[in-house]
């Protein structure tokens, strides 16, 4: 008892300093919105996996054709229809990349190609499938990114004008959108490809013709929401003109939605390009895209499954990665939209 009293005497205590400054002091460094979003994005395993796969595929798409000694249209019938064969890994039997076809014949020995390695095999004209697949990936990705970029420019401009001007302008612009949305994109795309020469640019144009509406609608919705907020009114009161308000105050606030929407445009564009190539309206040979490679491969699915396998796997991986990344970005940039 006496011990405890001794321990707790008044000398042990000091009066606390009441200071406004100290209580307002920020001990941790403040995180900006983008830092916060990045943290949330990297916490999401799915989107990290998606990012890594996209990075690897991009790397291969650009390095693959450069590193190989073959061109994407080098034909040589003496080495036609070779199954895939990869050095070192060919020793591992069950992987099926030892140059032996499905009938159990080593085609490399049959065709005197013992010293050559075609990682993904060769097609009916003896073109190296490895180079063709990565060249095709390049083209598919190029179309997708181009379509997403054009969609973004048109959609943001249209949506911003429609939402910001409001009134009659908005009314007319929205009626136009409603009609465009009513027209099925598949139909427009097919018709446009028929009119234009099949090629990268015409595929992109036909994708954009119906694709921009999604972006325009989302941007308009966001602008409408922001238009009546206090910070915009404050800026208006201070005499800022429309372009300043749009670029300095509204644009940073809707950037998240724009990025999310674009992320979902890309896999969509890749799918439609593949779809068009698949029904015979896509890229004209000898150029290849992932879709046209799959389409070509289907013709000999039963005898040479490797021709379908690699482009199909890569297109699936791209689609999965972009969807995962898109989901992750949506959660990271707009927690309210979280599903």
């Amino acid at each position: 008892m006496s011990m405890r009293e001794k321990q707790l005497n008044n000398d042990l205590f000091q009066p606390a300093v009441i200071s406004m400054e100290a209580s307002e002091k920020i001990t941790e460094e403040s995180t900006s919105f983008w830092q916060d979003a990045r943290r949330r994005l990297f916490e999401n395993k799915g989107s990290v996996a998606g990012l890594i796969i996209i990075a690897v595929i991009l790397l291969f798409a650009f390095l693959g054709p450069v590193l190989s000694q073959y061109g994407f249209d080098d034909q040589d019938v003496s080495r036609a229809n070779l199954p895939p064969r990869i050095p070192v890994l060919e020793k591992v039997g069950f992987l099926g990349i030892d140059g032996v076809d499905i009938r159990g014949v080593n085609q490399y020995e049959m065709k005197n190609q013992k010293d050559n390695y075609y990682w993904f095999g060769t097609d009916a004209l003896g073109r190296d499938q490895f180079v063709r697949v990565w060249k095709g990936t390049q083209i598919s990705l190029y179309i997708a990114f181009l379509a997403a970029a054009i969609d973004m420019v048109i959609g943001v401009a249209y949506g911003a004008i429609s939402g910001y001007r409001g009134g009659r302008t908005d009314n007319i612009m929205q009626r136009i959108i409603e009609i465009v949305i009513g027209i099925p994109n598949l139909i427009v795309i097919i018709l446009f490809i028929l009119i234009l020469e099949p090629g990268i640019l015409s595929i992109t144009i036909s994708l954009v013709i119906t694709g921009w509406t999604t972006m325009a609608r989302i941007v308009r919705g966001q602008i409408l929401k922001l238009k009546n907020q206090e910070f915009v009114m404050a800026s208006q009161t201070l005499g800022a003109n429309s372009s300043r308000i749009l670029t300095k105050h509204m644009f940073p606030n809707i950037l998240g939605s724009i990025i999310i929407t674009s992320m979902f445009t890309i896999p969509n564009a890749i799918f439609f390009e593949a779809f068009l190539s698949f029904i015979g309206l896509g890229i004209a040979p000898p150029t290849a895209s992932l879709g046209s490679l799959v389409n070509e491969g289907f013709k000999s699915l039963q005898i040479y499954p490797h021709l379908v396998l690699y482009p199909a796997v890569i297109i699936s991986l791209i689609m999965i990665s972009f969807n995962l990344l898109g989901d992750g970005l949506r959660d990271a940039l707009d927690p309210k939209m979280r599903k």
Partner: protein
Amino acid sequence: MVRFVLKRMLYMLITLFIITSFTFFLMKLLPGSPFNNEEKLTDAQKFILNEKYGLNDPVPVQYFNYMGNLLKGDMGVSFQYDNRPVSTMIAERIGPSAVLGIEATIFGTIIGLILGIVAALRHNTAADYVSSLFAVLGISIPSFVFAGLLQYYVGVKLDWLPVALWDGPKYHVLPALSLSVFVIATVARFMRTEMLEVLGQDYITTAKSKGLSKLVVIYKHSVRNALIPVVTILGPLAINLITGTLIIEKIFAVPGLGYQFVGSITLNDYPVIMATTIFYSVCFIVVILIVDILYGIIDPRIRVAGGKG
């Protein structure tokens, strides 16, 4: 409600008018006439052929003729298949496509709903992760990849089901399955989100605290409310199914409308392309209209908002 439906109908007509005109003029922009490829034709013969099909008339006259015939249900005749009327060609081919689409929708919706409900009820467990993974894969992986996999492994390697063609119920399984993957994935994903939201509502707690059995709470209170928004994805799903039939019918050689459409594109059979385009557009637009109206009927809040607007 009536005003809402009428407004939607008006939009539908405008859209249809634009699509048909657009299709017509785009077709006119195409270089050459349908008979250019026939090397043996003399100029006089070509003239006679063009005269027969009304292709020598000025474009506006052709346009009014085409629109007039269209209103009567006459879509012209095929250039490739011995002057067969396009409308009969479509009528003959629509059967397998419709059957395939309906089978895929029913199967896909049921499986998708079950997956979504299970995932939500077992939130953050293995069942949830498996179902979510399946949903991401189903949405991402293109249907032709699935179709190819099924065809190769089930059809060729295991030899369980026919690889292609259309000759009895056995032939339906693989194409309908490949077509339904996207439906399953979309429905499962959407249903999971909606169920999770509904399960967090106060009235679920109320229902539970009233002592209702688990099954009643799940079925009567959760699932039925979660189903309402699922109706909205039916429109986009139907559109996706039509795109899907083009691919799936080609892979499995199903003699449906999609297969014919892809064929007519390769053959440059313009009347068939045009008619099928318009037919598909009508399907799209009608589906979207039905979904809109259905949604208004199911959810009274939307009807009220629509009536005011």
